[in-house]
């Protein structure tokens, strides 16, 4: 083959790497100092692109030229930096000591809010920005044309790296940031006001994200999806490089950039998967990334954790009444309400399965959608390609998901805290990418259609009863496991792994088993889901599905048994209620989640339990068999 082609491909890889690095550097710096995985970093990136679009428009109308263009880029980055300060003051400052889940959800809520703010301000269309004056042409590289702007960008990444190096080694602020990354408390004991330092770090992180987004404008139009797309890539780069390491991020960006440039030649089918595969491999070999350090302590570790009380007669009465209500519901509910109830039951099972490992096992999964979606896809593929009947496909769904959970779980449970959450996310993205790219088998973006229930279950009422029976059976089993030695063992490991190990429990094995059980249950929910919809597409595997489950658990209360069910009901109904009312339901959801995290960290059922002691029996009042 033509060597010039390879040279150009290599340069393409370098340009990609440069962008990846600029988009990730801020994320890793913010994590290093604050220990918060900031989802809103993607929003900053997107805002950078949109602001640059508007500013460049204004400036270049006033005076066309390079100064106007670069001035717009720089100003956009500065404005985004100021927004970073706002985020620190309003949100992050309140959650530095909160468990990871709260931090992840709070910053994701900001993502939702910003998405709708952007749509309100700039609309949903792609906005193509101006090209950089003076860099519009091509250069000849080994006889091939290579865009000047790309060439310039190849130098931009190392330039930013150099600037950061100078900042971190030649300024007091930079030295303090590095010191705080190593030992926050000691920096405080030496008289440094951490709050100010954190504010400064958020400015820097957001500035870099805004800069990366603004520089992207001449390459690719500003669009409302760029936030989630970039954050996923930035996570990969940050995690591979080692969270908190700027140099690590640079190396990781080079690795991913070149891998994508050449990977597309060798494995054109799996370019999306490739990055996540690399990330999974790196985390398995080096659990803290290329240049990362172990985290001092996980946030969740110090919590006492919730206990389990025996049911009171009042509680049992409540559940029986609810069950009776669910049984007679089809007598007076219309078709639409039944459809909604089916969804609610399925998501109840999904959320319950997540909390089975999260609340009761201390394993924060950020990719639970993988198991729900694999159940759904497993069933759909069996129906579509192999003409399985619904019954068989429904049975296979949890097995497909469970097998994946068994494999992924074995690797995930070796880690803890944020790293574990990131690895679960990576696996979910791998599954998502496969579903997206393997068009012949999965239907790709369009998914699969015509996955309907068997004829006997075709009526909405019958399918409702089927869903009711299966999901309640799933929930009931998990519920029982929580009260059985199995659930106690999981909780023992969550409370104190060292103590659990010293009384005969293998902590990792127990976490692995619980992870697998949870995956099986999620897969069951996925199987029910696909037949209720009649079709499936990769969205079911995407980040928002995982976040939905986390939100349900959070709304209901992590440290409760029934919370996830209440959360699933509330979120499902809320979406159903809010979505038709406003175009901007994401913002409404974002504000609700944010309010929830900041104001009611215990969730709904947690609050109820505090207010109404009868609902959750206190130890003193517990009835005890002799």
């Amino acid at each position, binding site marked *: 083959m033509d060597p010039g082609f390879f040279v150009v491909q290599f340069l393409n890889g370098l340009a990609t790497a440069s962008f990846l690095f600029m988009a990730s550097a801020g994320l890793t710096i913010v994590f290093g100092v604050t220990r918060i995985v900031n989802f809103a970093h993607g929003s900053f990136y997107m805002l950078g692109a949109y602001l640059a679009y508007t500013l460049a428009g204004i400036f270049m109308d006033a005076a066309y030229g390079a100064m106007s263009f670069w001035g717009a880029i720089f100003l956009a980055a500065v404005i985004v930096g100021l927004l970073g300060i706002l985020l620190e003051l309003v949100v992050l400052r309140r959650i530095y000591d909160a468990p990871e889940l709260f931090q992840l959800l709070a910053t994701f809520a900001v993502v939702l809010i910003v998405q709708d703010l952007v749509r309100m301000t700039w609309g949903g269309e792609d906005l193509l920005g101006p090209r950089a004056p003076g860099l519009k042409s091509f250069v000849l590289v080994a006889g091939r044309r290579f865009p000047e702007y790309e060439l310039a960008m190849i130098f931009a990444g190392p330039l930013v790296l150099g600037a950061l190096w100078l900042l971190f080694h030649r300024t007091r602020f930079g030295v303090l940031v590095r010191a705080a990354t190593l030992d926050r408390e000691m920096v405080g004991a030496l008289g440094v006001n951490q709050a100010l330092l954190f504010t400064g770090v958020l400015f820097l992180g957001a500035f870099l994200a805004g800069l990366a987004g603004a520089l992207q404008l001449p390459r690719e139009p500003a669009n409302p999806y760029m936030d989630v797309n970039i954050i996923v890539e930035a996570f990969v780069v940050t995690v591979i490089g080692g969270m908190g390491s700027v140099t690590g991020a640079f190396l990781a960006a080079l690795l991913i950039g070149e891998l994508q440039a050449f990977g597309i030649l060798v494995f054109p089918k799996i370019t999306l998967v490739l990055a996540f595969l690399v990330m999974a491999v790196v985390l398995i070999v080096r659990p803290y990334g290329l240049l990362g350090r172990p985290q001092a302590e996980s946030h969740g570790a110090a919590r006492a954790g919730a206990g389990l009380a025996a049911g009171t007669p009042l509680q049992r009465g409540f559940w029986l009444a609810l069950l009776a209500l669910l049984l007679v519901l089809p007598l007076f509910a219309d078709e639409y309400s039944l459809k909604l109830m089916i969804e609610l039951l399925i998501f109840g099972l999904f959320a319950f399965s997540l909390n089975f490992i999260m609340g009761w096992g201390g394993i924060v999964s950020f990719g639970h959608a993988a198991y729900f979606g694999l159940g759904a896809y497993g069933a759909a593929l069996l129906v579509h390609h192999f003409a399985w009947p619904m019954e068989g496909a429904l049975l296979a769904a949890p097995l497909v998901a469970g097998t994946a959970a068994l494999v992924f779980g074995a690797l995930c449970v070796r880690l803890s805290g944020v790293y574990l959450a990131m690895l679960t996310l990576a696996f979910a993205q791998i599954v998502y990418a496969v579903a997206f790219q393997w068009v012949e088998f999965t239907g790709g973006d369009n998914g699969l259609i015509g996955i309907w229930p068997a004829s006997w279950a075709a009526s909405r009422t019958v399918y409702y009863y089927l869903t009711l029976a299966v999901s309640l059976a799933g929930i009931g089993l998990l519920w029982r496991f929580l009260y059985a030695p199995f659930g*106690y063992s999981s909780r023992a490991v969550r409370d*104190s792994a060292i103590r659990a190990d010293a009384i005969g429990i293998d902590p990792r094995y127990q976490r692995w088993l619980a992870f697998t059980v949870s995956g099986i249950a999620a897969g069951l929910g996925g199987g029910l889901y696909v037949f209720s919809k009649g079709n499936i597409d990769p969205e079911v595997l995407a980040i928002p599905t995982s976040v939905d489950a986390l939100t349900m658990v959070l709304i209901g209360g992590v440290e409760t048994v029934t919370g996830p069910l209440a959360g699933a009901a509330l979120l499902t109904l809320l979406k159903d209620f809010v979505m038709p009312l406003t175009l901007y339901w994401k913002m409404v959801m974002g504000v609700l989640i944010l309010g929830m995290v900041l104001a009611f960290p215990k969730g709904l059922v947690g609050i109820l339990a505090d207010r109404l002691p009868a609902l959750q029996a206190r130890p003193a009042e517990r009835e005890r068999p002799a």
Partner: protein
Amino acid sequence: MTLLRVERLHKSFGGFEAVRDVGFTLEAGERLAIIGPNGAGKSTCFNMIGGQLRPDHGRVLLDGEDITGLPPRAVWRKGVGRTFQIAAAFGSMTVAENVQMALMNHHGRARALFPLARELYREEALALLERVGIRDQAERFCSMLAYGDIKRVELAVALAHDPRLLLMDEPTAGMAPAERHALMRLVSAIVAERGIAVLFTEHDMDVVFAYADRILVINRGRLIAEGPPEKVRADREVQAIYLGSTVESPA
């Protein structure tokens, strides 16, 4: 009868030799204390016996059986119960459930999916709690307990599988002075009635000299003295390390 034999145990972290060729024996029914300044290697030594750390070389023999390098759960199965310096109980469980958890493991049912855990081995658990004097706290969550009582929960948990050897890392740390003696009297009584052995580290010299049959002194990873309390108290080198004259050359 020699219950525990430790031979030339060695562990270094990076270039730092935390424990250097430590060896000793422990007889059934004996209370053996390990003392030494901070960073002397007591906890490292302890964690190598309990399985939390793997020694670089050396052997740990329990009743003649080699248990070197086994993980904690396996060491536990061989009949070693252990308590921790910073008491580790399952905060989300009641006192009784903590002990039941250990009993479920002992009876091989810790992964059962269907029985109600809180009803399993309850009587046995309550009997153990009775023995350590906190039967009246059985229904309280561990997260709400006074620290001294958590130490007793740990003791009950450590006794659940009828161990031959108890490892207690600073059993009285963090307790009020009066509670310390009560706890150690209890431990002594249990050791006597069950004929088991106890190996403990301790900072409180009152406790060490009142309750140890024999004392090992470790400094900079080395065993520097060993013997009954009077002999150790009179040892010049021990005096020196506790009062800080630097008789040793730099590490």
